[in-house]
Structures are given as structure tokens and as C-alpha cells.
């Protein structure tokens, strides 16, 4: 059997609710059995714009969390910022609208087999899937600390209930409008030492992931990061979302962030060579 996209299915999924939360929309979609196969890190590809749309490509969104115990069957939560044409369309769709979705796609965050201290780092829009991940890590017995960063306070996604599964949460903004003024990467070396962090999980913009990798390489900490690269298909057939990743034999492969990612080993990604001719 095919191992690629092995849990993925294409279904028509009704929106159960769409609420504006600050700069974001929290969209809950009824996805039935698919919810049971979704893991933190996985993403969903959604058709946007309706049948006569001039937008021909799906949009990829991180699955922020799933629930299989609700009375309506399996559900999926998406945290969407309406900043492009496709995400604006999605945020404008109300309860009852049916979405054409393909999910779950991509790799998931690996969960440690032992209860080690872990640090979750989220940048801007990227922090949403970390809360579902925190619950799972917490259930595994890991000490979970979280730091979130953005250019400004209104771009921080930190739901109240999200704080329950973390030991501590610190917020950094570049303009100082929320939490501490500075970059989210600033306190990482100190936190690694103080808490004896074994794994860093991160979601956010690529420069942040590259900066975290630099730190984790110096401290022998595992860095599992969810990368963001623009993709056309989300299922591995278009070859647009590639990143240079080093192989064990020293060679470099351009791997697809949709099927070999989005969760990748940060230490293997050649961040300096992203966007350059190999």
C-alpha cells in the first residue's frame, strides 16, 4: 500500500462554528472519522472561493486541535488569520457552509517516549497547533513550558484554556505591546539550561525556526519544527514546497514540506540554503 498521504481523505465537511477571536477566526469543522487520524503538526488542505473561484489551489492550514468526543462526532479546530484572498474567504464562511477538505496531511510532531522537559515556541500565527500538542505532552508526563512571540500583541494567539496544559507561558513582542519587549528566541538558551529542556517544538516563520535551530545545535537539544513554505497541492505532487535537507550520507535533498514535513528535524534543514540554487 501507499505510505504517502496514508491517512488522508477528501471529504465535504460542514462548518459548525466560526468565531472571531481578536485578529483570528476560530473555525470548527465537522470531520467525522478523520479527527481520529489527526495528530498535532498535521495540516488540512481546503478548497477556497466556491465553484466559480479564480483561486484554483487549495489553502493549507495547520490543524490546531481535534476532538473525537463531542456529540456531533469528530471535529477539527482551525485558527485562521484573514490576510490573503483564500483565508479571507474562509473566515467569511458561516455555520453550515460545507468545505471541501483533504486531511490529515503531512508529518506530526514526535512525542517523547519518556517524560522529559520540553519547550514549545510559537511565532505569530503559528502558535495554534502548539496548544493541542501541549495537552498530549502533558498527558505523557512531560513538563511543558511555552513561549510565544510576535511583532505586536494583537498577533499573539494564546487562548485562556491553552494555559491549563502548560507549566508556564511567556510572551514576547518586538514592540513591547504585550509581555516582554524582544524576540521569542532571546530567552531560549537560558530556559534550556534552567529547565534541562530535551526537546523544543516550534511553529512559526522560517527565520524564527532557523534562529532556534542555531541555539538547539549549540545545546544538543532536539528541535522539531513545523516549516512554512508556499505549496500548490499539499499532497506531494507539485514539488513547489521543497526545502534543502541534509541526508545521513552527507548529500542534500530538496524535500517536500507537505509530505516530508511540515514537521522536520530542524538540525537537518539547511536554513542558509533555503531559496538558493543547490
Amino acid at each position: 500500500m501507499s505510505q504517502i498521504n496514508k491517512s488522508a481523505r477528501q471529504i465535504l465537511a460542514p462548518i459548525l462554528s466560526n468565531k472571531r477571536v481578536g485578529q483570528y477566526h476560530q473555525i470548527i469543522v465537522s470531520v467525522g472519522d478523520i479527527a481520529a487520524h489527526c495528530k498535532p503538526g498535521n495540516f488540512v488542505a481546503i478548497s477556497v472561493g466556491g465553484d466559480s473561484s479564480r483561486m484554483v489551489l487549495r489553502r493549507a492550514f495547520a490543524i490546531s486541535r481535534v476532538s473525537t468526543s463531542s456529540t456531533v462526532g469528530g471535529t477539527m479546530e482551525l485558527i485562521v488569520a484573514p490576510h490573503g484572498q483564500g483565508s479571507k474567504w474562509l473566515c467569511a464562511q458561516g455555520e453550515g457552509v460545507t468545505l471541501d477538505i483533504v486531511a490529515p496531511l503531512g508529518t506530526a510532531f514526535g512525542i517523547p517516549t519518556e517524560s522529559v522537559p520540553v519547550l514549545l515556541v510559537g511565532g505569530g500565527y503559528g502558535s495554534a497547533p502548539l496548544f493541542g500538542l501541549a495537552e498530549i505532552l502533558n498527558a505523557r508526563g512531560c513538563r511543558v513550558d511555552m513561549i510565544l512571540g510576535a511583532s505586536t500583541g494583537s498577533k499573539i494567539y494564546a487562548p485562556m484554556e491553552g494555559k491549563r496544559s502548560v507549566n508556564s507561558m511567556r510572551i514576547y513582542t518586538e514592540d513591547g505591546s504585550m509581555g516582554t519587549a524582544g524576540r521569542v528566541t532571546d530567552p531560549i538558551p537560558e530556559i534550556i539550561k534552567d529547565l534541562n529542556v530535551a526537546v523544543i517544538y516550534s511553529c512559526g516563520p522560517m527565520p524564527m525556526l532557523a534562529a532556534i535551530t542555531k541555539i538547539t545545535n549549540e545545546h544538543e537539544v532536539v528541535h522539531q519544527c513545523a516549516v512554512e513554505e508556499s505549496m500548490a497541492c499539499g499532497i506531494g505532487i507539485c514539488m513547489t514546497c521543497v526545502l534543502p535537507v541534509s541526508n545521513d550520507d552527507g548529500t542534500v535533498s530538496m524535500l517536500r514540506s507537505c509530505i516530508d514535513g511540515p514537521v522536520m528535524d530542524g538540525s537537518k534543514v539547511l536554513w542558509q540554503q533555503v531559496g538558493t540554487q543547490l
Partner: protein
Amino acid sequence: MTTVDFSTTIGNAWFPAPTFTASGCASSGRELAQFFPLKDMGGVVTKSVMSKARAGRPTPRMAETPSGMLNSIGLQGPGIDAFLAKDVPYLVEQKARIIVSIAGETVEEYSTLARKLRSVSGISAIEVNISCPNVENRGLVFACDPEASRRVIDGVRRTIGGELPIIAKLSPDVTDLVSIAKGVVEAGADGLALINTVLGMVINLDSMRPHLGGKTGGLSGPAIRPIAVRAVYQVHAALPQTPILGMGGIASGKDALEMILAGASGVSIGTASFGNPTAIMSIQAELKQLLLDRGFTSLKQAVGFAHRSIEGE
């Protein structure tokens, strides 16, 4: 009449359905196999393979455009040896019909690739991609030069002998497509794949520079469909006996029928699969119904129907 003979032929290759993936839009085939059995479509046209492994162009590699997209992949791939060792056996195992697409930087590279394919079993035809727009030197786009196109096809034909059908994939970015088509058919092509993507560019308004890493890219999707229909129509008028694999923005059964009426014996689906992994299956079902609705008992009756005069009906 409730059934329609959906089969088609390209040279001596027979396919149960006229629906194919477009080269470079199905990767190795494994990715789509999760969504439908690969044997349920006419065939898989593989991603154009070169002699050696190739990293391709830098990112960003794509930009969505109105009703289409630009891509700038640059023929990233494993090279012919790994392709023959891993990808072809997988497709054979899936019982998919296989059209192997090859691309080279020189006339000799195409011949070398053809030589490696000569003895491989399970391949229905070879697509010779002489029109990839994503190469560093536009001078290397063989399909823009009638003489170079002819030399490539001639070299491949001589290498593989007479058995395996050759499909030449041509570019619409030429002044006289018909003369290039005639040239490659004379040189030994059994069929034509029309059209490759149209060369385009998007400029990023933030950086105020070309958006794609490779600067230029190939435009695909419904935006180019009328160009493809025109190309297929013109070439079919000039070469009515030459089977054409029509492609360029096909996203529905109606689009596929349009291409067939223009003169295509089969259709390839590319960008539509990016937006919808099961696009080929729905296009296939819709096309079959549309043929039935119009009273066709076989696909072949509809091929080139748009060329018939009204009196001739």
C-alpha cells in the same frame, strides 16, 4: 445507447480511458494512489526524468495567478536510474498504464535516456519533453527551434526502434506551432502532447523583484485553456492522423470534451489535480456522460468533431 467505448490509442498503445496525468503533476504516482486506484485512469504520464538526479530551481517555486498558477520547478528528479529502479516498478505493480516522460539538455541526453528505456517492460509510450520552460537557458528549449526539435525526436526514434510510441511535448510559445509539429512527426513522433505551460512572470510588490526563485515560470490552469484548445485545433487541422494528448487547464468533463472536439485523442490533467486530488476521476465520469448525452458511441467519434462542417453532419 447506454455505453460508450472510452478507449483511445496513441501509436500502437491502447488505453482504456482517454484521461492521463500531466507530466510533472503526479510526482511518482504514490501520492495520488491514496485517493484513487491509478489503474482507473487512462495512464500516468510520469514527471520528466533526466539522466542524473537534479535539485531543481530555488524556492519560491510557485505563485497563484487568476485561474491559474506559475511554477518554476526546474525538473527536480531522481535521475533515470533511480526512477527505473523505484518508480516504474511501483506503477507496474499498481497496474497503471505508463507513459515515461524524458527531458535532456542535449540531443545526446535524450538518446541516452531512450536507450535506458528501450528494454524496460510495462511502458506504453515515451513522452519526449522538449518544451520545459524552466531551464536556465531559453536556448535549450528545443521546441522553440524546429530543427532542434526534429533532431531530438530523430535521435530518440533511432535509439528505441519502431515499437514504442513517441509523443513529442511541444511549447505554445512559438510563432508557428504547426510547422514544429510537422517537423517532429516527420522525424518519427507518433503523437503530440499539447501544450506545455506558457512562460510567465509575477513581480512581488513587497520586494519589487520577480517573485519566483527562477524569475520566470510556466503558467498553467484554466487561464491557458483557450490557448491549448487553439493549439490542438490548429495542429489537428494540419495533421488529422496524428494523435494528440491535449492539456492546458482542463478542470472538468466539459473542458475535456472541448479539447477532444478540437482534435485531442486524450487529455492530461495537471493543475486541476493540485486543487483536487480526485479531479481526474470526476473529469473522467463527466466526460463519459457528456459523450453519451451527445449521442457518441465512442470517444473516437468525437475526436476533432469541431472541424466538421455543419453540412457534413
